[in-house]
């Protein structure tokens, strides 16, 4: 029924069936550095996520556990499938990662924790990739098992409410919970590029003079734009500005204005522009003191463009881009690791901006 998911097996025999799977081909090497659980309540997500895991396991060896949930189905049922994703490592050895897929329906969704998490590879961290809106299933007994909780806030209908839940989870978790928003990961290379432009002493000197910020984003990626703005404000030490320019502050068309004030009291006007033709993040531009620095990306372009414009000083250099797909973003994030402390640092300011 679901050939992409492999062989359907009785839930009570998963471990036995996995052993059989490996016994069938001894030439393969089973590798695992983490448990990766992928959770979705969207119909057809198991097959789609199996493909995403196939991509991910090329660089990140893991035991993958796919979870497909239908909370509203009338009947309670649990079904399971097993398969392995194999890749040739350096053209030599076939490296394989196990995948167990679960489909839970109706009241059986309440058995998620007991059934699914009984199949974690012991001693390895659990990365939990939650897809879609947060639901009642996201509660403390779930996230208390998780080491890194990955989500994508860009598609959330009510980001204010959902981020409040996330913030509570971070505060209340019984063990350190690293949260990773793919909307934030999407701006990583932009942030690296902005930082690298400010390595230039001329540009750094002009930082206190910055008075204009422009961020262009795709309409689906407003959260990414706002998080970028929050990062700029937090790192630069900008306070919220006086309501000097209500016309700018007001939302109009695809634009939203914000005002800040630097530590030295300089007024800063920031504009978030939503553009259908833009990449997720299309432009971050800071100007002031005769200096303009910008990082931009055309939709679909394979590189960012980093630019400094100042009297007698012009520099333009390409930079790498973040992947456009969620699996790619997760892969990048897993490669970087860390506790994502910067995201936690900007989270309160971002939530304030979200309120505006």
């Amino acid at each position, binding site marked *: 029924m679901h050939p992409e998911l492999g062989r359907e097996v009785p839930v009570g025999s998963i471990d036995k069936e996995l052993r059989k799977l490996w016994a069938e081909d001894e030439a393969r090497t089973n590798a695992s550095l983490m448990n990766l659980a992928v959770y979705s309540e969207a119909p057809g997500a198991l097959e789609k996520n199996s493909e995403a895991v196939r991509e991910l396991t*090329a660089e*990140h060896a893991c035991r993958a556990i796919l979870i497909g949930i239908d909370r509203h189905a009338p009947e309670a049922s649990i079904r399971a499938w097993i398969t392995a994703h194999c890749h040739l490592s350096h053209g030599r050895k076939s490296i394989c990662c196990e995948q167990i897929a679960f489909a839970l329906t109706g009241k059986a969704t309440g058995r998620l924790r007991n059934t699914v998490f009984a199949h974690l590879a012991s001693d390895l961290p659990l990365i939990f990739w939650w897809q879609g809106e947060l639901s009642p299933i996201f509660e403390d007994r779930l996230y208390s098992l998780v080491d890194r909780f990955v989500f994508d806030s860009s598609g959330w209908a009510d980001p204010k409410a959902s981020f409040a839940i996330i913030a509570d989870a971070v505060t209340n978790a019984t063990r350190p919970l690293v949260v990773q928003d793919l909307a934030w990961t999407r701006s990583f290379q932009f942030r690296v590029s902005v930082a690298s432009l*400010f390595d230039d002493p001329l540009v750094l000197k002009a930082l206190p003079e910055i008075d204009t910020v422009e961020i262009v984003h795709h309409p689906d990626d407003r959260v990414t734009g706002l998080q970028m703005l929050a990062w700029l404000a937090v790192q630069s030490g900008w306070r919220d500005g006086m309501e000097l320019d209500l016309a700018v502050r007001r939302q109009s068309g695809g634009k939203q204005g914000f005002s800040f004030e630097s530590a030295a009291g300089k007024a800063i006007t920031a504009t978030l522009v939503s553009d259908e033709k833009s990449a997720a993040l299309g432009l971050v531009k800071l100007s002031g003191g005769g200096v303009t620095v910008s990082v931009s990306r055309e939709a679909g372009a394979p590189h960012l463009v980093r630019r400094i414009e100042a009297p007698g000083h012009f520099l333009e250099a390409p930079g790498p881009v973040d992947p456009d797909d969620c699996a790619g973003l997760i892969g990048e994030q897993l490669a970087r690791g860390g506790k994502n402390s910067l995201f936690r640092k900007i989270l309160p300011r971002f939530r304030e901006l979200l309120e505006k």
Partner: protein
Amino acid sequence: MTNPFREDLVSRSRPEPCTVVIFGATGDLTHRKLVPAIYNLAIDGELPPGVKILGFARREKSDAEFRKGLEELNRKVSRSGHDEAIWSTFQESIHYHQSEFTDADGYQRLAERLDAIDRERGGKGNRLFYIASAPEFFDDILTQLKTAGLNKAKDGCWARVIVEKPFGTDLKTAQHLNQVVNRTFQEKDTYRIDHYLGKETAQNLMVLRFANAIFEPLWNSRYIDQVQITCSENLGMEGGRGGYYDKSGALRDMVQNHLLQLLSLVAMEPPTDLSADGVRDEKVKVIRSLRQWDTPEKVAANVIRAQYAAGHVDGKPVPGYREEDRVDPESMTESYVALRLMIDTWRWSGVPFYIRMGKQLPKKATEISVHFKAPPGVLFNALSGGVPGGNVLVIRIQPDEGISLRMVSKIPGTSLRLEPVKMDFHYATSFGKSSPEAYERLLLDAMAGDATLFARRDEVEEAWRFIDHIEHAWHQSNNPPPMASYVAGTWGPKEADELVQADGHVWRRL
């Protein structure tokens, strides 16, 4: 004022924009390693905007010709492929400067050229001089840089120098070179490159030892029986390398630098911090604590040298060392060396460290194996077969980077039989993403002013002090230890086997 956007962003030292001036720019190293490394850093977004490359060499070339040659090689060797769009922007930052290495006027023109490039392309004046020329020009280049004032950075900028191996050919020449370098650049601005230290597994040595609680308590003479460091190559003198190698030999070419550096990382005490000098202080203590083989008799008893005779490697016939192209038919240069080293410290008292390096061995491999002492045999020695060997921790540097631990296990069955089993960690299996090339990491560190993975003056000189005694016994004493022989494609001479057998050990089978 620090850049606030760097805070919490990436956990590494921050490379700064600079112009990289490469001496010996038409050479293989520049084309195959250095420029592809900088290009890959650009691809990965690690390179700060504003980094420029200026090739300095004797041949007449235009910027365009220089770029074209680099592009051709980059297409073949770049780790992350060749992207036309990136290259077209990247190559604009590449320039060429023709001059003899000894021509003072050429360096004056270089200074003017660097200033002009900075003016045109917005550089702030940081300079990274990379001396990748033949070693006989090191002196001249450094002296001329000083004469032209290029060793002095402008206000708020820096001028650093990276020196490629060989860093001298003995203690005297190394000391002389160090004097020349330090007359020109301060020690803190001097980066003596040893690309082995840029390899992922070499960097992982400190992590393995000091970030895992289970190893360090055992990392001493009480629990460790012996340590072996092997570097085997399945190549000989192909491509005309006999000319260089015959003047150098295995001991000076590999042991003095790469293998003693690995030894330092294995044997050093925990540094007080991860600063460059914190780490290097501890590394140099290891070299300083090596028992000196300072008489021909001691050398004969602890060091074996050998040359390969004709044989077969990978199924193909290969000539003997003395029959190789550009090798003296009466050469007394060793293509193989095996050493027994003793580190006279509290931690390592009585533990032999064996190092072997050879050409035309059966396969290419570099690894460190730490052999633990056998457990008390009161329980299992009565069994037929006894306990099959002790625990061995193997750190594979190349190829197939990884770590394995050999343990003893019971064979399933009704009888009690013990056999060794292996827990194996392969970088390539666990981390699908390829590691950056050693030169990428090292260039970035030099741009960031982080010298941790570079050799310091005293490390180099102490290593030469140790090596010189052996070279002296071989080439200048009245009773030099003999030159042994091994058939190409075998694991070295029988004398090397006897060296470890005398201590009740055998070389690890790779």
